[in-house]
């Protein structure tokens, strides 16, 4: 009888999945997601697209906040930098979209080097403050650099055509987002399995111990920050394409908070958590609207006028409540349920 999930070798500890059936279920899920765009109506499809794009960004932040334990309040800055890098390269200079995506990752990564190098030398919350400052500086920089970014007018972006395959239709674009989401998922899972990922987690858990083990704290923190910015930048490019128009207003500060809420709700430091958190947070405002809409039409009206405020209030509440009552997030709850299922009626 199976009594639990035991790791007996080091190989099992770094395995990509717990057990072979996980591969099967993942394949079923991916097949489902490939078919889904043809079945869903356009409203539901837009949610699917948003979820897939947000997953990329949340996984990016997860490397920094989840694995390495550093708070960034300015990830929206990397999102907007990535979106502009793509828009400038592809819409303005007519480069190949793949070069655009590469630029969307590389430009934020370079910028993050400038922000991260001074602030990551320090212990404590300084990264949160500098990234917060950065996300405001970058908006001013974008608005001032009119020759490159058209200032406040923004740049319109077409959906790309890569090697003769057009991603113009909604289902096709969903597939593109799905591709990026799966790539990012594998990338972050593999980072976590590698020497680098273990170093990140060691820094998060106890930086003095990590240093004693020979981990160069500054270098690894900086690497976490840069790779996180790279992935977030790509998410920004995808989001820009989704909006079909890149401007500073399209990337409000709330997105930074949303990303942190996703990680906390999902469970810090877990890729599965980032995915679950994204689904919950993206659907939360809509779900709340439906629940309250049942009671009265007046509430429904409130939701449509104050949508942005209600959203931010929900994110704030979710952050506080999860930290207080379920600090391990949805993943923690899932692990508890799984253990209960395996061990029942015994406690362990």
């Amino acid at each position: 009888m199976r009594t639990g999930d035991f790791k007996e070798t080091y190989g099992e500890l770094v395995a990509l999945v717990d057990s072979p059936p996980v591969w099967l279920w993942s394949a079923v899920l991916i097949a489902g997601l490939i078919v889904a765009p043809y079945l869903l109506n356009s409203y539901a499809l837009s949610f699917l697209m948003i979820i897939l794009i947000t997953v990329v960004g949340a996984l990016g932040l997860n490397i920094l906040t989840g694995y390495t334990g550093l708070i960034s309040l300015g990830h929206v800055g990397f999102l907007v930098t990535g979106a502009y890098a793509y828009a400038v390269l592809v819409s303005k200079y007519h480069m190949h979209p793949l070069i655009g995506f590469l630029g969307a990752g590389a430009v934020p990564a370079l910028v993050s080097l400038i922000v991260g190098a001074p602030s990551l030398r320090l212990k404590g919350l300084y990264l949160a403050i500098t990234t917060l400052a950065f996300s405001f500086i970058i908006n001013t920089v974008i608005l001032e650099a009119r020759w490159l970014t058209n200032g406040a007018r923004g740049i319109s972006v077409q959906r790309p055509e890569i090697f003769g395959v057009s991603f113009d239709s909604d289902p096709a674009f969903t597939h593109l987002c799905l591709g990026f989401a799966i790539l990012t998922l594998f990338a972050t899972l593999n980072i976590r399995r590698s020497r680098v990922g273990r170093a990140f987690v060691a820094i998060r858990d106890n930086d003095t111990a990590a240093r004693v083990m020979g981990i160069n704290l500054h270098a690894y923190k900086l690497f976490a920050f840069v790779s996180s910015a790279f992935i977030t930048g790509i998410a920004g490019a995808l989001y820009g394409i989704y909006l079909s128009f890149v401007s500073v207003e399209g990337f409000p500060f709330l997105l930074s908070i949303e990303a942190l809420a996703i990680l906390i709700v999902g469970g810090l430091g877990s890729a599965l958590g980032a995915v679950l958190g994204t689904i919950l947070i993206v659907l939360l405002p809509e779900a709340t609207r439906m629940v309250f809409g049942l009671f009265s039409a007046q509430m429904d009206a409130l939701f449509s006028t104050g949508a942005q405020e209600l959203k931010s209030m929900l994110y704030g509440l979710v952050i506080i409540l999860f930290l207080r009552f379920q600090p391990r997030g949805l993943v923690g709850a899932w692990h508890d349920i799984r253990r209960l299922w395996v061990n029942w009626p015994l406690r362990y």
Partner: protein
Amino acid sequence: MQYLIQLLVSGLAIGAIYGLIAMGFAVIYRSTGLVNFAQGEMTMIVAYMAWTISTTISGNVFVVAIGAILAAIVLGLVIERVVMRPMLGEPVFATVMVTIGLAVILRSSINFIWDAYPHGLDIGVGRSIIRIGSIGVRTGQIAVIAMLLLLLAAIWAFFRYSKFGIAMRAVAADDRTALLMGISATRVHSIAWAASSVIAGIAGVFFALTYDLSPAMFQLGLKAFPATILGGLDAVLGSGLGGLLIGITENLAGGYLGSGMKEVAGFAMIIVVLMIRPFGIFGERDIERV
């Protein structure tokens, strides 16, 4: 020359407001070791409450002042009791995230409790312009600078001489030893939150008096970050003076380099300070480098 002096004076006035909010940061950091990301939002809420008092109860200056201070104390105590105290003993990461969540909630609550339009807090003082030579200054601007200096002196004396001020320093230095000496840490925390809320609230009310009241006021809190980093996160007096420096820098940058630079100058300062002197000009605690 006159342009320069005008810039300096208005820089000092806005800097005094940043300085007050930055002192609020530092009071909480000193006694709880926690960066309160909701400081700007608390500033804004107190200003809105003062506005409500002035429109509903009485527009008398003293009524509004006392009402606003009481409201700020209640706000600080409620936040500490309801939101922060349950997080006592949790890792810093979690408590800081809670203040971020709180910030977002307070920010959006403005639109539900009040509305999204700008208002003027008009109680008959603060807006008249005094001319000194060829320079025009609003009375509110002079008053806020005086208020900052007054509070700086008061807080210095409080931490230096009063028993409770010494207790707060003890909790900040080593909370476990302070507990053994019979100091109630939770009491110190709640007083710190109330004090910080009052100091920030004064800044908010003065800002509303001299300029106006709008849901974008929380950005004052963001501008106060450079002030407290420059002055030292753990230095209450330093943060106040840091505010003045940031205010002047920002206005000079705005006046000579363009309005875009005005928004950025303070934030650029953070990065410079962290590179050169990460514990700030007046900060005592050594910050560990890695």
